[in-house]
Every structure is written in structure tokens, then in C-alpha cells.
């Protein structure tokens, strides 16, 4: 029972990270019609920037929180810049092309980013202990004797807050309305004076930021290298598909469900590859049960 509860906590933290990663995918897909296979790779590159700042450039006499803050800040600033760069250098030029072509372009982005990172940081295993809340803060639930780290709670809270924050931003602000208008029809939105280019740029920047946040937050859980964070894409896609590539709340729910589904089997099956099988089964189940044509809403 205690083990089960402990795995639930791990699963929910993991689910929070999947939700964050999936939110970025849904945001970019809804507003620009690009299904971003490079989402994991973008998060990966930003995480390595954060790692570089944390271990390479920070001064040993700085307090731990300052190094952490600067590292996360550097990673996020880089991510925003990369999102903007991709929009201006690549995706602006293919706006009217089919969704499949845009998706294949993101595979090119994935390959380039992954090998650039592997060129700079080699194929070593890294660890980056970035915690949102101090590690020492642990509560023990009296019923099941399970320690709950403040960091796990922080991740879950951040995921929920971002999902509802983004949802509110899309629903209640004028720029959010502009983004929804572009996702419905870029042509008529531009006829109504909506700045389509600006909307695309902001979507890519936000999506890239969220990807970086997800990848940085997963680092205390795992030893990562250039491929393992890139491959986070499949879990993020599974969560995004549960939300139908449209709904933000359902995407977050999907992320948590997937996190739990991938964590519980590790009680019995010690295999690094098995969670990938769980993700594939979830993807297949979602796609075959739901009407696949429902996913072409924002695909222009």
C-alpha cells in the first residue's frame, strides 16, 4: 500500500511534466497548424543550456538558489529565442503548406537540434538537480507513511496553473482571442485585421518556453542525455492526443493519466523501455476509439 502510494506520487509528478510538454504541442498545433515533432528536442537543447550555466559558468561561491535561478532563466530565455527564430526562419515560409509537410519539417528541426547538442555535449549521461522547492521540505502522510516532496507538489501545481493560465489567456484576453481566430481560419483572421504573423511568433515562443520548462523540471528524476529528452516527445504526443490536440484541460488530465499508467508497471517490470510501450498503446487506443478526422481542426 505504501509502495502504491509512493508510486502514485512519482506518477503524478511525471504526469505534470508530460502535461507541460503536451501543452506546448497543443498550443503550437492549434495556432499554427504545425504538429511539432521537435518539441522534445527543443526542450532538450534548452535544458543543456541550463546545465551549462549551472555547472559551467556559475561561480562556486554563489548560493545554490542563485545558480538554479540563473540556470533556469538562461534556459527559458534561450527557449524563447529559439521559438522566435524557428518561426521567422522556417515556419513563416510554409504557412500555406499541408500539415504533413510542416510536420516533416519539424523532423528536420529534431535531427538538427539533436545532433547539434550531441556535438557540443557528447553522448554522456548528465544530471541537473533543479528543484522548484527545497529538497528538504518533505511531508509524511500519516495514513500510508508516504513522504511527499515539496518539489513534486510544486511540479503538479505549476502544470495545473499553466494549463488554466493558458486557457484563461486564450479565452479572456484580446490577444488570446486573436490566437483562437487564427487557429480557426488564418485567412479570415487576417482579413479582420488580426496580426497573423505576430500570433505565430508568440505561439512559437510560448510553446518553446513550455517545452523548456517541462524538460528542465524532469531533470531531477532522471539521468538525461541528448536522446532521452528528445524522446520525451512520444509521451507528450500521447497526452496531447488524449486532449484531441485541442483541449488544454483534457491534455493536462491526459498527462496525469499517462504518468500514472507509465509508473505503476515499474512496480513489477524493471525495464527502461516498457513505458514507451504503454505510451504507444495509449496513442493507439485514443486514435482508434476517437474519430481521427476530428484532429484536423486546426490543420489548414
Amino acid at each position: 500500500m505504501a509502495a502504491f502510494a509512493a508510486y502514485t506520487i512519482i506518477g503524478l509528478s511525471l504526469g505534470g511534466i508530460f502535461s507541460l510538454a503536451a501543452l506546448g504541442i497543443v498550443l503550437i498545433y492549434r495556432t499554427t497548424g504545425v504538429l511539432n515533432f521537435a518539441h522534445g528536442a527543443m526542450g532538450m537543447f534548452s535544458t543543456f543550456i541550463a546545465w551549462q550555466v549551472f555547472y559551467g559558468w556559475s561561480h562556486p561561491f554563489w548560493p545554490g538558489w542563485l545558480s538554479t535561478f540563473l540556470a533556469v532563466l538562461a534556459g527559458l530565455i534561450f527557449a524563447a529565442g529559439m521559438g522566435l527564430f524557428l518561426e521567422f526562419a522556417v515556419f513563416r515560409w510554409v504557412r500555406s503548406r499541408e500539415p504533413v509537410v510542416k510536420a516533416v519539417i519539424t523532423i528536420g528541426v529534431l535531427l538538427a537540434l539533436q545532433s547539434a547538442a550531441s556535438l557540443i555535449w557528447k553522448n554522456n549521461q548528465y544530471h541537473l538537480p533543479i528543484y522548484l522547492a527545497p529538497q528538504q521540505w518533505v511531508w509524511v502522510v500519516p495514513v500510508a507513511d508516504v513522504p511527499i516532496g515539496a518539489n513534486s507538489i510544486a511540479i503538479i501545481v505549476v502544470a495545473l496553473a499553466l494549463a488554466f493560465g493558458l486557457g484563461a489567456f486564450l479565452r479572456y484576453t484580446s490577444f488570446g482571442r486573436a490566437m483562437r481566430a487564427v487557429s480557426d481560419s488564418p485567412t479570415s483572421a487576417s482579413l479582420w485585421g488580426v496580426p497573423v504573423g505576430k500570433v505565430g511568433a508568440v505561439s512559437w515562443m510560448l510553446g518553446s518556453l513550455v517545452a523548456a520548462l517541462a524538460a528542465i523540471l524532469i531533470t531531477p528524476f532522471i539521468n538525461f542525455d541528448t536522446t532521452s529528452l528528445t524522446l520525451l516527445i512520444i509521451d507528450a504526443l500521447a497526452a496531447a492526443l488524449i486532449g484531441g490536440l485541442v483541449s488544454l484541460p483534457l491534455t493536462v488530465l491526459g498527462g496525469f493519466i499517462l504518468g500514472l499508467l507509465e509508473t505503476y508497471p515499474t512496480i513489477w517490470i524493471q525495464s527502461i523501455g516498457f513505458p514507451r510501450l504503454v505510451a504507444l498503446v495509449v496513442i493507439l487506443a485514443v486514435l482508434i476509439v476517437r474519430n481521427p478526422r476530428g484532429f484536423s481542426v486546426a490543420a489548414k
Partner: protein
Amino acid sequence: MTSRLMFRVLGALVAFALLARIPVGFDVGFKFDAALAVIWAFGLLSLVLLTGYVGQISLCQATFAGVGAYTAGMMVSSVHVDYLVAVIAGVVVAFALGVIVGLPALRLRGITLAIVTLGIALVFDRYIFQDHAFEWFTGGTGGWRVGQATMFGLRMDSSTHLMAAYLVLLALFCLVALLLVNLHESGAGRRFRAIRDSELAAATMGVNLTRYKLLAFGMSAAIAGMGGSFYPLVAGSVSPQPFWLFTSLQFAAIAVLMGVRYVPAAALGGAFMAFVPDVLTRYGHGTFMGHAYEISYDWFQIAVGVLLIVQLIALPDGVWGDLRSRVRHARSAAGAVGGRRVKVA
């Protein structure tokens, strides 16, 4: 029609004759690259059929090649059969897996199919090719070692008889490429292209979507598996690394880059994929203006990614498709100026 067929058979024979002599005189490394180039070209050819003809996306072609490789390795190492039998077994197993992968494709298309095949490639890469539970199939961490293999009673293992393996591979590739070119205008080829243009319209015209989509996936997987099943012969053993997810992604990227609708583009892409990284790692180091530099394999993949992006923005039909249309344009222009009529097919 018949003259066109004769022309194509002649073309395949000439291509075989020219390509067969090229690796002679080079060192073992380049001979290995030549054989590897044909194996990768099979993988790209499988995408010409699946994506170019039938319009289905797949990001797991290296998985089919890997399954072919492991099956062939298992057959030779543990059952000690003739390599021809091992190749046939590899092709059959890859075909079966292709049909299974094709089942979800009956309800999916476009990017959703890309997501599913990406997941399949990842599951095989991280789980089936690497986990202890599948050691009976993958031969454990060392993989299957193919020390001495015979085909038609001839020795053709990697240590001494690499050229023999290369010639068999090349002959098979020319044959399969010829069959694919001819498939394009056959009845099945017309049904495939009808599915590519519009599944709804194809079904309305009486094309059995289930049968032809599954057939396309099976045939495509069999082509990739045919190349892959020669991998243990050429490399001496099998390991998960050559057939991991990033090879599948490179297959998709390079097939699109070279021109996914054209059979010769697959040969071009295979050579690109095998020779460029090796040439880079061999000669790409030294000093330039006092600074030591080293160009590693990673630069190849960066180049593939960047070239793919540039190509999709600027040359949507791929490198081969663009060259082809330029040559035809130049020929018809020359015909108009010189008064010599050139038939533009």
C-alpha cells in the same frame, strides 16, 4: 509499351554493371560503405513505394530493416541455414510486421499515422531490441555474430568476401527497383496512386482500401527488411544502434530530401547516407588557419536536418525531382529552338 520495358531492363542492367565495378580497388572501409549504401537504399526504396506511390507516412522503416536483420542473424547463428534462407525469413517476418503496422493505418492518415509509426519505432528501439525479455530474438547484448556464412554455396561473409555480398545486394536492388518502376503503371500501381490522391475517391471507384493499404505496408516493410537482412552478413553482427529511431527519422528525411516519388532518388540517398558520414569522419579533421578542427558524424545529421528544411521550403519535389524537371525543361526548350522535336513523357 514493350519497348519501354526493354529500355528499363537495359537501364537496370547498365546501372548494375556500372555500380558493380565502383568499389573495386578501394579499401575495406569503402567496400563496407558500398554494401551499406545498398542496404540504406533498400530502406529509402521502401519509402518510395509507401510514401511516393501510396501516400502513407511512416517513421518506422528502420524498424522493419532491423527486424529483417535480427531474423536473418538468428536464422544463421542458431539454426545455421544457408544465407538465402535467412534473407527469405527476414523478408517474410518484415512483411508480416508491415501488415500488422498497416492495421492502424486503415483508420489513420497524415500526421496521426506519423505519430503511431514514431511510437512503434521507439518501442522497438528502446524495448524490443534492447530488453532482456527479447534476448531469444536479439541474441543478447552482443547480438548475433555471423562469422561464416554461405549463399548458393559461396562464402560471402564480411571479413573476406565483402564484394560478393555487395554484388548480390546490388543485383537484388536493381531487380526490386525495376519491379517498382514497372509497378507504377500496372493495375496495382494505379490503385496505389488512386489511394494517394484521395482515399474516398479510390474507394468509390471500387479499390479495396483494406487490401491495398495492407499490401502497401507489407511490401514496403518487406523491401526494407530485404536490405536489413543483409546487414549481419555485411557488418558481421547485429546491434540495435543501426536500426534505432534516428535511422528511421533519417530515412524519412533523406527520402523526402532526395525526392520521395522517384526510384533513382533512393539509390542516390543510400549512397549519401553511407558515404558522406564516413568521408567526413575520415578526412574531416586537421588544422585550418592554425585551429584544429574535427568534423564528426553529428555534422552529417545536422546537414540532413537543415537540408531537409531548405528543400521543403524551396524544392518541394526533392533533389532528384527538381533535377529531372530541369533536364526535361532544358530538353524541351532546346527542341523548340533547334527545331528538333523531343518527346516529353
